[in-house]
């Protein structure tokens, strides 16, 4: 889909989206908690259905939560964008809470590539940028492994070329 329902910032930079698998991966990660909870609530409700019929509300609530959070997670995943501009990297995310971070290449201290177990199942990785400030929270999750490595190498090169004095 080309519709970009998300906020715009930084003039008209074309943002790269993260992998479409990222949304699925996040949903799976949240299901790890939701599904057992749902099953437990369902079992309890079925066992005590004659005594306490209102227990069915519990699993319905969990199911509704699961559905809503899935929708939110999928939308959030689509809202993540990053743009490698000439002198800095721009990361944007959030639908309810708009956040955009700009990290000048000259300020990069080091770049991390992380991949957790679920990440690896989907062949994804997270790129995290570090500056001398602990407040810098530029994280790009859900990149395909190859893209993550390319981005890291490119950022490291740009960082070295532009390294600015503190």
């Amino acid at each position, binding site marked *: 889909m080309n519709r970009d329902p998300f906020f715009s910032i930084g003039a008209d930079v074309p943002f790269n989206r993260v992998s479409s698998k990222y949304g699925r991966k996040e949903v799976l990660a949240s299901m790890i908690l939701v599904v057992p909870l749902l099953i437990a609530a369902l079992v309890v409700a079925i066992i005590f259905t004659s005594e306490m019929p209102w227990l069915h509300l519990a699993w319905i609530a969990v199911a509704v939560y699961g559905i809503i959070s899935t929708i939110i997670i999928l939308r959030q995943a689509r809202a993540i964008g990053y743009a490698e501009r000439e002198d800095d990297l721009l990361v944007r995310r959030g639908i309810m809470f708009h956040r955009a971070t700009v990290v000048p290449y000259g*300020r990069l201290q080091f770049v991390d590539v992380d991949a957790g177990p679920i990440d690896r199942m989907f062949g994804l990785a997270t790129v995290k940028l570090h500056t001398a400030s602990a407040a810098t929270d530029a994280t790009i999750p859900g990149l395909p492994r190859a893209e993550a490595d390319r981005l890291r190498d490119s950022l*490291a090169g740009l*960082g070295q070329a532009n*390294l600015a*004095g503190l």
Partner: protein
Amino acid sequence: MRDESSPDTPNSPAEAAAPEVWHRVHPLTPILESLGVLVGIFIAAVYGLQNFFQSAVEDLASGRSVNLTFAEWLGAHPLVILAVVGGIILILVLTAFFSWLAWRVMGYRVDAEAIYYRRGLLSKKLRKARLDRVQSIDLQQKLLPRMLGMGELVFDVAGGTDSNISLKYLSKKRAEELRDELLAAVKAKKNASAASTAAATAPTGTAAEHGGPEPETGAAGEAEAGADAAGQPRVRAGDHGGPGLDSSGEQLGIDLSVPERSADSIGVRLSKRLGALADDVSQEAEGSLNDLLAPYHLSADVGEEGEIIRVPAHRVIVSSLLNTGTLISVGVIVVLIAIAVVFLVVGIEEAFLPILLGGLPGIFAAFTAFKKNLDNANFVVRISEDGLAVRHGLFSTSRKVIPLDRLQAVCLHQPLLWRWAGWWRAEYNIASDGGKNDENLLLPVGDIDQALLMVGLALPDPQLPAGISADGLVRSAMYDRKSTHPDAAAAEGLFHAQPRSSRVIDPLVWKRRAYALTDSLLVLRLGILDRRVDFVPHVRVQSLRYYQGPLMRALNLGTVAVHSTAGPITPLVKHQDADAAKRFFTEHAERTRIARQTYDAAAKSPHTDRTQILEEDEG
């Protein structure tokens, strides 16, 4: 006080190159060091006896006879007393013996490359600080050593969190001699290495300056360098270095090999000028100082040894009493006492003591806070070619150098109750990994002129448009529209206030909070009760972040965080109009980029200047 094992203490570290000449520290050192344990034992004993005394006091108060069964029992068994006294004596003798043994293995050694410090009877420890990695050498005098005329030398090394080597204790005279010798050696060493680095990598000036770690592998490189430097494997970038930065280009004080840049803070430029001047600085310093601080319309007096600020003890005491927290705890204590007295008068005597005792923690807390503030009494700032040398402390004196060239942001703060006195406190952020143990104080308390002076020194020239003076800007930032300064009205025009819609979220502060931009600075005016002004030079900005939550979107507001290093200042351009905030975000990214480029280009470009200054340094 040199000790007998090394009567031929060399006068300069270079001469000390003869291997394995270990100098001993002061013989009282082990005792002073174990004093903490002794005090602990004493407190434990007192705590143990407390029950006894408490019951005795209660018995007395209630008119019963004191329960002396324990004392009677003791009287009946004199051997027990003998054993206890003998045990104490034995412990003392053993302590003395082991202290002597421990003292015999404590020592330090200086050679041309490094300073070594060894200690430890059972587990031997040898620590090494390479002279070219030493950031600063502080002479610290804690209360007890000071009473005995001793002090410790603390070597701040670029390395791990506890990479500081603290050489203790030496007689004050010896410590001062050693510090001066080592400072000279460190300086010579660094100048030499700076000269060779500059020669080797002159075309890539920044890389030479900042160790140029490749960003990705910076951490690994730092780890090796740190381990190498401090003889230990921990990774950290030193108190004065940014994480992963500055691993090899460490400097003591200010790097004089880089020419004066307009975006340097005024203090750095002053130091560079002083460095180029002759030794007789006092007169010249005053001239340069007032020259550079001209935009602030200050006339600072440079006193003896370059002293520019002295905060008397009584001012620190009064200012710490004017702390809301202190006043509240004092109020609580007074109320408690009043209640206790009322109870006593009414006749409920049992409640008297417990209520008073209940107030004790409050008194302790207030006293602790108060004592911490006393540490800032006699705050003296001297301007030197290394930067700002600070000395403070009422009972124990500590010294340090504020590395002006590494300051990332500065703030002025005026707690509510300081208003009537017109006092301000100045703090800073520094490129380091938090500075947890250090208070980032530029000025603990001072009047407006002192505050302007310190802020002026710590910041680059604000580069204001014609017609607005720097002190007008700062005063306007301090006192918002209430400022009576003639320039304040003009400076007020620079400030971007929050839009009216933000009053829903910020009912009080929305009229005061504002930001102003100059060509080199971002100035933030904050806080309606506790007034506060943040300053962030464009060249020091790390990254930026734009934020807007649902409520803010409903009000069409946006916030931009300007990321600085860890410290007391977290600059936020808060609740501006959403479009203005987005524009600020984009434009500030550009502004800071240009500022950085000009700043680094200025370090590289005039090649002749650079070598010339180096030659002057050596000559």
